[in-house]
């Protein structure tokens, strides 16, 4: 346990598979991601992107023979501790509509057993620009506001790695801008892993890109090594592969 955090890698994925009977959702996926990087995962529907994200965020366990370490923590053995350092932003709001913004954040703060939670909640609400609505029910929020609150929730425990599951889906351009800004602010000290169908956005933001198809890694490159046209070609081919 002693040298868990000494790793320079945010993700160390080795032969991660997820099989059930004959079906292989993930098939020997391997790659490494250094800390502070921004990984965009692309791929057709059913390629295993969400499964990979769920496995890395400890929601599901990989099959035997897999090894995955996030921030040096093993996703199976050190799952509980790992969760303290994970934040997630999804296309679902992950918020309770019948609670106020304040109450939602209080609830999650309690779950993470955060000290001095009131201060932190206030700071975050102010930072995402929702302080004036803190006593309103989330049910009354617009999609963009919900997403902002969602970000506040994700950042409550100051996670080192943030998973984004199609965060832009359903957002209008204004809300997308705000999300972009917020991500840009916290870009520095955090690692990001994003699943997105938006090729432009994903490439723009990322430092590393991964294409998955049928549960396997088709391409994994650093952004600087990517030739846009070649990438487009591979992407179109893979998306073509997925349609059957």
């Amino acid at each position, binding site marked *: 346990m002693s040298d868990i955090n000494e790793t320079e890698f945010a993700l160390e994925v080795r032969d991660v598979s997820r099989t*059930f*009977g*004959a*079906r292989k959702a993930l098939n020997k996926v391997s790659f490494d991601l250094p800390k502070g990087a921004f990984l965009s995962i692309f791929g057709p529907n059913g390629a295993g992107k969400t499964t990979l994200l769920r496995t890395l965020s400890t929601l599901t366990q990989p*099959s035997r023979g897999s090894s995955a370490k996030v921030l040096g923590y093993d996703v199976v053995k050190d799952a509980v501790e790992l969760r303290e350092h994970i934040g997630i932003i999804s296309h679902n709001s992950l918020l309770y509509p019948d609670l106020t913004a304040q109450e939602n954040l209080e609830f999650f703060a309690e779950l993470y057993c955060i000290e001095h939670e009131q201060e932190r909640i206030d700071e975050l609400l102010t930072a995402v620009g929702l302080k004036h609505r803190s006593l309103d029910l989330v049910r009354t929020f617009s999609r963009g506001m919900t997403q902002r609150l969602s970000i506040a929730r994700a950042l409550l425990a100051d996670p080192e790695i943030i998973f984004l599951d199609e965060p832009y889906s359903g957002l209008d351009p204004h809300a997308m801008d705000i999300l972009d800004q917020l991500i840009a602010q916290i870009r520095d000290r955090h690692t990001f892993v994003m699943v997105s169908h938006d090729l432009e956005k994903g490439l723009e933001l990322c430092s590393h890109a991964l294409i998955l198809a049928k549960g396997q890694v088709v391409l994994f490159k650093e952004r600087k090594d990517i030739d846009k046209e070649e990438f487009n070609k591979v992407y179109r081919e893979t998306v073509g592969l997925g349609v*059957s």
Partner: protein
Amino acid sequence: MKGERVKKPIKIAIILMLVGGLLTTAAFLMAFNTAEVQTFGTVNLTKAQAAASNTVFEVAPANLQPIDGTINYLRPWFSQKIFYFHVPFAEASFLIFTVAAFFAVMFLSKRRKSFDTKSRIAMEVAFLFVVATMITGDLWTRASWGMWWDWEPRLTTYLIMMLLMLVYFVLRNSIEDEERRAMYASVFCIIAWIDAPISFFITRIIPSQHPVVFKSGMATSNLVPFIVAQVGMIMIGYAIYTLRVGEEQNRERLEIIKEAIEN
């Protein structure tokens, strides 16, 4: 994966099926021919005793005939014969249910799909036997008490068990995702397995008008067909199970081949 080894269990299964069938038939014949017509559970009670303690001994109100102040209860011939099958069916079904629960536990700990498949098939076979239990049990109550149904403890428990198994299949049907289906089904199988014996005990101890059937021993010549039937039935159960497992495995292999061709 398994290849040649699959053939052997199937051969064994077929043999067992035949042997089991033979044994059960033999038991059937023995039951009707060689076993003595025992006045099963003949009990001599004074009338007062009979009235007060109807939860201990078999009492069929319609058949009580006071003789010199005591009551002799003679079981009718046919219903006793049914008993030779009813109880073995019942015991075999619970045994197979236990096997299903065992595989469910194995699945939850190892997450291999084959365990879930085995659990499901065991449940199917157990269900078959439970239905057989219910049918024979129903015939028995008809023959002994003259009614088609009675909420007596064993029958009630088996009704509940049958319902639990039906629910198991309904549950499986209502989940699309394969892994979730296997997980939920395994959990339900285990909970149901714990519930069945509890049902049995509680139905026995609640105060009610219905008597608890209490076995009071059998003569040796009766024991033989009983045991023969029991063994025969377990063999049949195992045989059906194995054949089905083989069938499932073949089907899965077919799926794998299909997918491989499509790629």
